[in-house]
């Protein structure tokens, strides 16, 4: 099928064996691409009991049929493995230039197994694959690694995806960085690379990507590029941080580790302020007409010289959630996360967890190794982020395990302050004042994350009562998950969702690219299959209904401030909503996909393998 290259690399780092394998056509029909392929590979290769940091874990990188074509916002790739942070299926999606370049090198994806005996990087130069010594790159930041590899190979057009010192030192929420400020951020995919002694993957691709109907595609995409700049597309103008004030007004700006829902200094860190005072340039990823990437440069003061691309989630996690109203410090902290190679959300929320422990006098200055971890202390936050990334000192080393493990290690009820589900620190859509979002966070197969169902949008648009739950929410969440599983498998950016009149337009693009006619409904079936297989992976690795719950704070403490004052997640409503979700999915009350459902999705074999 056109669009797909039809082959992928299978690399065993232990034996240094590289094989080129052809992509089964059946995969394309059943799993579409991207995370669909990744979850399938994880299911087929990672049996029960495999430790996520062991050589037996398998990490795979996948593009979709659209990468390298003219389809807007499509130069994306994902990394999928068992997550060291959650022990569930883990994945993240990045953009930049890497995905399309991999396709032009002649591969839809890369599967990596085993563990190299010392630090290496992989260079994919069209048909030539080399596993190269990376000892000179040990301890280097992601930005340095990018530059040094290009220098060594003497070609600036090479695209590099790498890990920083955090990944090498197995900080559990390490990311994979490409194009310097694009990341496979969540679930510690960089940690898996680190555990395999794999510092980077460098790609040079010089071949064509073939599509079914290039002439028509050229015509069809033109108005879509225009639509990317349309009136609804605030991402490319004001940028995602515009949500800071929107959340503030709704009582959804989680502050001081979710103890408050409004932030007294919100205006200081608002998108409007940032755009006016810090943003130096707006840039884009390959084949993106939206251009959401707002690059901040700090021009004076103690953080002078810091520069990073700051989006809403990063800004919130390292800002309001830590009580910090200083854009310069936030820009610096994001830069540290980017260069040392860590997920900004998990980093921010692990720091905010430590801050709450400090404020509640569970931690003292001796334990924090001299850091005065009060909410709002930006100097302490920036220093702690640096220490976590470098695993410097006992305290920061503990935090590098993520908030859940750190809380278990600390004990004394501090798990209550760890704002995570299944070990993944949550995103900027607070549970009590965005309850449809909360359900989506809890059922999410990778842990608390908004980008797997988008169910928070119902709360945002106020089409449901966002301060309570009912049996209608299960369908909203499940439909969202199926939809997003397709989007993440085609892989296109979710910021492009508003440019299509309806989803059939995407199916039409798929036809122009691949030559295969398909309806969106058929796509959704694949989405459902992908999500069910992800759920089956988690069940195989010991997860169940009891893991689909929110942090205790959501059920026990009422919101103290803002328009959502008094809101709480009622356990009876929660259970009813969760039941409705399982029911709609045709899973058992324990959240296990039924035999009937699996058969319907052509996943019969999965039932036995789940181990229930």
């Amino acid at each position, binding site marked *: 099928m056109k669009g797909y290259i039809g082959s992928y690399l299978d690399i065993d780092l232990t034996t240094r064996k590289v094989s080129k394998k052809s992509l089964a056509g059946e995969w394309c029909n059943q799993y579409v691409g991207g995370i669909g392929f990744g979850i399938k590979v994880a299911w087929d290769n990672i049996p029960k009991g495999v430790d996520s940091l062991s050589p037996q874990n398998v990490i795979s990188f996948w593009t979709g049929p659209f990468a*390298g*074509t*003219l389809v807007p916002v499509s130069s994306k790739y994902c990394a999928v493995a068992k997550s060291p942070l959650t022990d569930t299926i883990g994945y993240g999606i990045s953009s930049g*230039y890497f995905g399309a370049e991999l396709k*032009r090198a002649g591969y839809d994806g890369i599967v990596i197994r085993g563990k190299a005996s010392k630090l290496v990087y992989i260079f994919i130069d069209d048909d030539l694959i080399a596993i190269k010594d990376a000892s000179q790159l040990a301890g280097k930041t992601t*930005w340095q690694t990018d530059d040094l590899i290009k220098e060594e190979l003497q070609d600036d*057009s090479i695209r590099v995806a790498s890990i920083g010192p955090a990944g090498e030192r197995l900080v559990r929420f390490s990311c994979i960085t490409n194009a*310097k*400020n694009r990341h496979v951020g969540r679930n510690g995919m960089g940690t898996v690379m680190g555990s395999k002694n794999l510092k980077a993957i460098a790609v040079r691709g*010089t*071949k*064509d*990507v*073939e*599509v079914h109907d*290039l002439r028509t595609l*050229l015509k069809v995409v*033109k108005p879509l*590029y*225009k639509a*990317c*700049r349309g009136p609804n597309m605030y991402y490319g103008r004001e940028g995602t941080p515009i949500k800071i004030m929107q959340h503030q007004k709704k009582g959804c700006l989680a502050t001081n580790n979710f103890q408050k829902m409004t932030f007294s200094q919100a205006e200081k860190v608002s998108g409007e302020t940032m755009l006016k005072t810090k943003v*130096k*340039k*707006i*840039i*884009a*990823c*390959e*084949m*993106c*007409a939206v*251009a959401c*990437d707002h*690059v901040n*440069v700090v021009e004076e003061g103690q953080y002078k010289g810091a*520069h990073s691309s700051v989006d809403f989630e990063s800004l919130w996690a390292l800002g309001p959630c830590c009580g910090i109203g200083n854009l310069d410090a936030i820009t610096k902290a994001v830069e540290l996360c980017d260069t040392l190679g860590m997920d900004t959300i998990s980093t921010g929320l692990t720091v905010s967890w430590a801050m709450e422990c400090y404020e509640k006098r569970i931690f003292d200055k001796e334990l924090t190794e001299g850091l005065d971890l009060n909410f709002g202390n930006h100097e302490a936050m920036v220093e702690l982020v640096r220490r976590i990334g470098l695993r410097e000192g006992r305290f920061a080393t503990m935090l590098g395990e993520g908030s859940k493990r750190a809380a278990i290690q600390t004990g004394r009820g501090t798990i209550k302050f760890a704002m995570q589900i299944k070990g993944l620190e949550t995103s900027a859509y607070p549970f009590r004042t965005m309850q449809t979002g909360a359900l989506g966070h809890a059922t999410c197969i990778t842990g608390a994350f908004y980008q797997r169902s988008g169910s928070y949008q119902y709360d945002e648009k106020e089409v449901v009562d966002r301060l309570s739950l009912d049996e209608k929410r299960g369908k909203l969440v499940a439909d969202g998950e199926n939809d997003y599983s397709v989007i993440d498998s085609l892989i296109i950016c979710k910021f492009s969702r508003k440019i299509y009149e309806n989803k059939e337009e995407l199916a039409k693009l798929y036809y122009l690219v691949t030559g295969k006619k398909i309806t969106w409904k058929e796509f959704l079936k694949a989405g459902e299959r992908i999500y069910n297989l992800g759920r089956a992976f988690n069940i195989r690795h010991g997860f169940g209904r009891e893991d689909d719950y929110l942090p205790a704070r959501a059920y026990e403490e009422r919101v103290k401030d803002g328009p959502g004052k008094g809101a709480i997640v009622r356990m009876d409503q929660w259970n009813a909503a969760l039941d409705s979700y399982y029911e709609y999915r045709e899973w058992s009350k324990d959240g296990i996909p039924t035999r009937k459902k699996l058969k319907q999705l052509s996943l019969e074999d999965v039932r036995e393998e789940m181990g229930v």
Partner: protein
Amino acid sequence: MQKIIICDTDKCTGCRICEYVCAAVNSNRLNPRLARIRTIRKEPVFDLALSCRKCENPNCINVCANNAITQDKKTGTIVIDDEKCDGCGMCVNACNFGVLTINLEGKAVYVCDFCLENDKKACIEYCPKEALSYTTIDNLKEPRVKKFHSKLREVADS
């Protein structure tokens, strides 16, 4: 003065759409490496798309041992005679902007021909930020002077 493709670096985002559509329209293929225009990024905040500058007394012509390269007197466009070009790459080496490309599959080099002065240039038409224009450097003077004036005024006001 000759018209060339000029990129507003403040608007350019480095999305490479100009490269993709150039290769698609001119080579009927999807491969930005075949484009006659190139994007360049220098982090953190510099992006530029660059094609032939139509130099006066161009280096590419001066170094060509086969007399395969000429310049159209009226438009300034560089013309490559595929029959005479043996793909030695001296012109690629000599160009200060690196905008000539060796065609790895054939012997001839290629360079932006400004779509033969056709009004419709894919790179400009598809640029989502309207960062590209086909104009003379001279035409840029007025807006630049105005921009500078307003900057001066800002400084004076503060």
